[in-house]
């Protein structure tokens, strides 16, 4: 049930009406209803895995209580350890088990040893990478003394399975439970802002991501016969595709959350204007990066703190390889993470890493030349990284890179019909312009202080553009597979 589908619209309208009318005055009733709606949403996508989600929720609820009421520090530590083993174990089993078997078999065969290792038919539960991270942060935060375990299993279950964030994040922290426990009142302004954010997310998804996807998929489907310039264009368009797809999804999830009276964590802060790689990762998939910063990078960095910059580099590289591997069981993802980790080395050694990058603009409101150069450089480095990310295998990644070098980069790239390329170009120009103008706001269509007439003109223009430029093939979101 993707957000940009009629079935989701029908589902959400029913949820919204029941939630704000008959259940308006009962927080408990609203939470029970949200939990049931979330389980229905999950079951609609993958009913066979629903018992796993419910079972894991119950286990982590009681683990949290056990950690807080443990009789000794040691007992509390081992209960937390059990939680981490269960969460990480589930991820390893469902996402990486076959990958490890295949990798070991290849390694043994490379050494001349014949093996009888077989892979298994393991179906990965949807959203597992997201809901296990919520469960893990719950038990770890309780162990660290940062969060009190809740006595409200309904609120806990809703935090884990909250349908707008269940399949692709954002990955909210346990403090979200406090929002679930508080009474909710319908705030008109918040709800309208949620609608605006959904509209902007929808535009990015159907007008930018799904149009770019058509071109990118054709090029990736036949790398060998493409010119170097076509491969470069497809690589650039893939950056726009994945950004518009995932940030569009996140905008819609946050917007749906606002309509239900919640404040879901931001996941993107206009990463197209990042000034360096560190700045980029502070703006891209923020809830995942922040999660790994708190639970992986920080403990490692504390462990290695006496090694100075090299301790930090080691911690960053390990964290980024894990960020890469989180996306799936493929060496390309590990290499993608390693590539980004290594890009931090010059920033750490030069000290630029420790200074927050601040963008300067000229009289025209555009970035000054130096910062524009830094934006272009960061954009190019990210584009290269996404070739590794998009490649189905290391072999195809090499073929793609070799194709750029060997197949004529100074040529006219293959272009589809004028209408199609015009649609892609216009959608991208609109996205860049809007996000540049709104870069200090929470999202691209935050228009709280704009005059009402202007606001309505902008809504209608954007709705018309979404319909005119959009590709309504009901394509899945890229991050559903992770």
């Amino acid at each position, binding site marked *: 049930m993707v957000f940009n589908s009629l079935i989701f619209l029908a589902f959400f309208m029913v949820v919204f009406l029941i939630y704000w009318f008959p259940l308006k005055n009962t927080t408990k009733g609203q939470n029970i209803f949200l939990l049931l709606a979330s389980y229905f949403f999950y079951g609609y996508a993958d009913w066979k895995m629903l018992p796993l989600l419910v079972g894991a929720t119950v286990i982590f609820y009681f683990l949290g209580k056990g950690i807080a009421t443990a009789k000794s520090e040691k007992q509390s530590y081992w209960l937390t350890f059990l939680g981490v083993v269960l969460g990480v174990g589930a991820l390893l089993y469902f996402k990486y088990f076959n990958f490890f078997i295949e990798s070991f078999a290849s390694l043994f065969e490379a050494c001349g040893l014949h093996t009888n290792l077989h892979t298994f038919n393991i179906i990965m539960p949807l959203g597992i990478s997201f809901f296990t991270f919520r469960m893990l942060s719950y038990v770890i935060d309780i162990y*660290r*003394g*940062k969060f009190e375990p809740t006595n409200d299993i309904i609120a806990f279950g809703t935090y884990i399975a909250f349908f707008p964030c269940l399949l692709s994040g954002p990955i909210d922290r346990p403090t979200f439970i406090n929002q679930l426990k508080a009474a909710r009142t319908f705030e008109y302004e918040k709800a309208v802002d949620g609608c605006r954010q959904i509209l902007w997310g929808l535009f990015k998804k159907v007008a930018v991501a799904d149009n770019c996807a058509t071109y990118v998929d054709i090029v990736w489907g036949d790398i060998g016969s493409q010119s170097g310039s076509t491969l470069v264009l497809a690589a650039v368009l893939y950056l726009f595709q994945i950004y518009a797809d995932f940030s569009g999804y996140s905008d819609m999830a946050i917007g749906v959350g606002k309509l239900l009276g919640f404040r879901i964590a931001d996941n993107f802060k206009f990463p197209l204007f990042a000034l360096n790689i560190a700045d980029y990762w502070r703006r891209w998939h923020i809830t995942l990066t922040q999660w790994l*910063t*708190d639970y992986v*990078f*920080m*403990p490692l*960095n*504390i*462990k290695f*703190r*006496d090694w100075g910059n090299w301790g*930090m580099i080691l911690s960053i590289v390990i964290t980024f390889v894990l960020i890469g591997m989180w996306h799936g069981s493929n060496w390309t993802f590990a290499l993608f993470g390693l590539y980004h980790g290594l890009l931090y080395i010059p920033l750490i050694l030069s000290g630029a*890493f*420790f200074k*927050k990058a601040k963008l300067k603009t000229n009289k025209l409101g555009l970035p000054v030349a130096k910062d524009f150069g830094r934006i272009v450089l960061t954009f190019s480095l990210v584009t290269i990284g996404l070739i590794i990310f998009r490649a189905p295998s290391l072999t195809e990644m090499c073929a793609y890179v070799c194709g750029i070098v060997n197949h004529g980069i100074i040529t006219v790239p293959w272009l589809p019909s004028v209408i199609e390329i015009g649609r892609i170009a216009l959608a991208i120009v609109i996205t860049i312009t809007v996000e540049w103008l709104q870069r200090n706001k929470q999202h691209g269509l935050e228009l709280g202080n704009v005059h009402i007439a202007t606001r309505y003109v902008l809504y209608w223009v954007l709705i018309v553009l979404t319909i005119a430029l959009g590709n309504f093939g009901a394509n899945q979101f890229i991050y559903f597979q992770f």
Partner: protein
Amino acid sequence: MERNQILAEVQEIFRDVLDKEEIELQDATTADDIEEWDSLTHIQLIVAIEKHFKIKFTSKEILSWQNVGQMLDCIAAK
């Protein structure tokens, strides 16, 4: 050492590491109150504090602090 003395010395370390003279620490101060204080500069602050007071924190201690007051209590207890 007096707690106020510890606070004064820790404040000096914060000003020095974060390169910001205006920093005024209180028990309730958190990373949200000081823009320059993030997960990266946090480690630099820890290393500088450990060096200055000739102490060593455990990982759990460092990860459990929620404000400056808790950090000062930990230093005072060493």
